[in-house]
């Protein structure tokens, strides 16, 4: 009886692993960006004249004001795409029925790739991450993303991103990401990310990474924009009052 059970369990585990090979590749888990040697930097972006001019203007204002933190970080915007796919921290992929969810520690918005949709839903609103649909072709996940709100740097509402994600023989996860945005790039621009599986207890869960807007930095940014003649939320009347008068006292002690 025992030997028959053993034979059956061996057969069962063979069947289970055979079944797994037929299913989609397992990319669930915690990953960390791990660019191959010599490919740490992506190829330079083929910027349109408009995009180049915008970059030059931003750099000029930053240099004039010793500004290190740009608008997106000053205002705690979502990292968006492709930004959230290149975090300096962990990035977790979760595979469940009909979707792949990507949690990137650098992003305050998770990303979902819908595997059960063939076309983009008309009800998808423009957003920071866009709307992603995908399907497996053999061992490669093909993803198509549209629906961007054009808020992040070098991302217009016309942005269209296509990706090829796959595991290589050594177990690295790859994402070949192509950005097609005629407003920002003169031709489709492809970047290639490679991730290594993160192991150990420290890598088991995404950690909380919270951006908190620093009012002083936000205020300074708006003031710089105004001084450069750009659209700004800087209010000189309030500024005069805020910097001259002490803040009103609380009616009761808060702590």
């Amino acid at each position, binding site marked *: 009886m025992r030997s028959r059970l053993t034979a059956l369990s061996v057969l069962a585990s063979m069947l289970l692993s055979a079944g797994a090979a037929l299913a989609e590749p397992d990319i669930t888990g915690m990953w960390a960006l791990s660019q191959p040697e010599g490919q740490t930097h992506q190829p330079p972006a083929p910027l349109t004249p408009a995009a180049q001019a915008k970059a030059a203007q931003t750099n000029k204002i930053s240099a004039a004001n010793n500004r290190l933190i740009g608008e997106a970080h000053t205002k705690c915007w979502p990292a968006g795409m492709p930004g959230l796919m290149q975090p300096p921290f962990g990035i977790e992929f979760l595979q469940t029925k009909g979707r792949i969810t990507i949690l990137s520690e650098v992003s305050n918005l998770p990303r979902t790739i*819908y595997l059960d949709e063939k076309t983009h839903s008309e009800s998808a609103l423009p957003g920071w991450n866009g709307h992603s649909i995908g399907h497996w072709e053999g061992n490669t996940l093909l993803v198509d993303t549209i629906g961007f709100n054009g808020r992040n740097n070098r991302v217009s509402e016309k942005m269209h991103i296509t990706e090829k994600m796959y595991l290589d023989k050594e177990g690295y996860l790859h994402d070949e990401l192509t950005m097609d945005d005629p407003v920002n790039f003169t031709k489709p621009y492809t970047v290639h990310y490679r991730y290594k599986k993160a192991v150990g207890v420290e890598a088991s869960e995404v950690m909380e990474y919270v951006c908190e807007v620093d*009012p002083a930095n*936000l205020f300074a940014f708006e003031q710089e924009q105004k001084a450069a003649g750009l659209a700004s939320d800087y209010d000189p009347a309030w500024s005069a009052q805020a910097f001259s008068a002490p803040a009103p006292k609380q009616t009761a002690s808060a702590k």
Partner: protein
Amino acid sequence: MLRSLILAAPFGLALAAASAANAAPSPGITGLWLLDQRVYDSVYDQDDAIAPLSDAYKAKAEEIRKARVDGGAVLSDNGKKCLPIGMPGMVTNEFALEFLETPGKVTVISENSPITRTISLTRKTHDTELEPSWNGDSIGHWEGGTLVVETTNLNERIPHIPTAGGVSSLKTKITERYHLEDGGKLLVNRMTFENPEVLSRPWSLTFRYHRAEGDAQLWEYVCEVDAAGWSERYAGDPQFKPGK
């Protein structure tokens, strides 16, 4: 050979089921859920819905509440600064909630939270080296059909206890007991709050969520600090120090 393969298949599945004891009973909790309860003035529609504060904290909480109301506060300070809603808020608000079950964990995503929450099903003890956080450190396990989750290491930035505005404590522990009803269409969360300093006794609330339609998707819900209106919002803020 074929006959033994057919015999082995169901046995193989049985083996798989036995090793997956740390998993939800069918149909599982993966999916999008929507809170059933109504919320009025931050108080939930159920009995015993006000936190039983200890004597020491009752006076303090009332003082803070009065200062905010008298000061004309409408939005919470954290809300206007776009800070995380934290626990338990991220699972007790009326925005869509997504549970994702993958091996060894349950991931919780709320449209209303800029950070996700991971419940570890593999860790048996809390991580004592992490800094206190907005969602805390959650470890869980399945007891038959009930997912029991224990959350500690919550920070002092928000009360982490409903109706206990102004409370600041690192000692709060939240225990959730989730189970499915109505053929998997209803998710029930019995949530217990414990804090020997703040509460006069352990205190529980029950939350019910119904499963959203199969093709429902989370929307992007992004909080942006409003620069234009922030002059009013920060003017009386003791933490705001203008100038470079």
